[in-house]
């Protein structure tokens, strides 16, 4: 038979290990002792939480809100991404004219038009070089010309221009995607 003192000490975990093992053996063998311990343990735990749980509750609150806000951010990101993916075909259709125009200028360059076979003869007819290896010297000449141009513009004041070059404006399609995505993030 367990004494009141033993039971409370067991719940407090202040019993020596041998005695604690004895208490456990007792309540495994004795159903009444097990019930007694269970009830006391319930009240011990409930009282501890009810009277001393405020600090722990604040900690849980912060932790829950952090998790929730993080999930909310992920959801916003995911929805931004979904929006972007949804918008992509629309962008294409809305810029269809521009693609068509590009196709006219650069036949066969648009991966979407890969099914449209363009022969070397057709390219030659439009004055497009078919050999881009530079073997005929044109590409390397052009490269040297570009370098000379760069030096000319950069040495206007006698110094090499190291200032950052203005980046070319991104295509409207890409701009739209980025805005959609980052707007989603900032929400």
């Amino acid at each position: 038979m367990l004494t009141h003192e033993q039971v409370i000490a067991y719940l407090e975990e202040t019993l020596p290990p041998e005695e604690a093992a004895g208490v456990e053996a007792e309540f495994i063998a004795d159903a009444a002792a097990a019930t007694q311990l269970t009830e006391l343990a319930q009240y011990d735990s409930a009282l501890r939480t009810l009277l001393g749980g405020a600090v722990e509750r604040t900690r849980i609150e912060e932790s829950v809100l952090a998790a929730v806000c993080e999930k909310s951010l992920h959801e916003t990101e995911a929805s931004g991404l979904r929006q972007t993916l949804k918008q992509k075909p629309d962008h294409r259709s809305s810029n269809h004219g521009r693609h068509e125009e590009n196709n006219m200028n650069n036949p066969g360059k648009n991966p979407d038009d890969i099914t449209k076979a363009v022969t070397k003869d057709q390219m030659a007819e439009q004055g497009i070089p078919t050999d881009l290896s530079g073997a005929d010297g044109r590409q390397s000449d052009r490269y040297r010309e570009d370098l000379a141009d760069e030096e000319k513009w950069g040495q206007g004041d006698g110094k090499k221009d190291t200032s950052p070059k203005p980046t070319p404006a991104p295509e409207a399609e890409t701009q739209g995607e980025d805005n959609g995505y980052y707007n989603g993030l900032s929400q």
Partner: protein
Amino acid sequence: MPATLAIKELHGDDALVAAVCTGDVQKYRLLFERHAEQLQVQVAFQVWVPHLVSEIVHETFVWAYQHLDEFQSGTSFQAWLRAIAWNLIRAELQKFAREHKHRKDYSKHRLWLDRIAAGEECADGPKVEALRKCLNRLQKDSREQKLIHLRYHEGLNSKQIAPLVSQSPVWVRVTLHRIIHQLRACVAERKAIVRC
């Protein structure tokens, strides 16, 4: 409509849930503050490992947030949380049983599994309220109230409490046991009035 009633309805659980669903995450804090204490004590009645109580409460609120769109407007948010917590406790204890089967403290926790298998899940809602009322009945500045405060508010054990009340640790344990029994009897009496 009286102003207080209007405010209560404006900030009712359904309104808060709707606000959170439309992206006002901060309103979830209000839901937490409204329901966490009750849930925490209900969980503590079931699970008597402090860190596990905290884990279950945390997981319950995170799970509830993730499934907030499944909450049925017009029903009790507290009851919904309790059902989630109950399932989490069950899962946690099954996991515990698998992992700790051969540990010596398994026998202590096996009692949880037995209780849960018996399906006593509805019993703890009124119990928490009754316990609160029974605690309030403890006489102010009485020996009982002081012991309860030192043990559960300050988190001291009987050896630490003994010198503070000029008694032996054995006296502290025996008296605490008696107080808990009195509280249990008081709760049982009140719970008989308010059945779940």
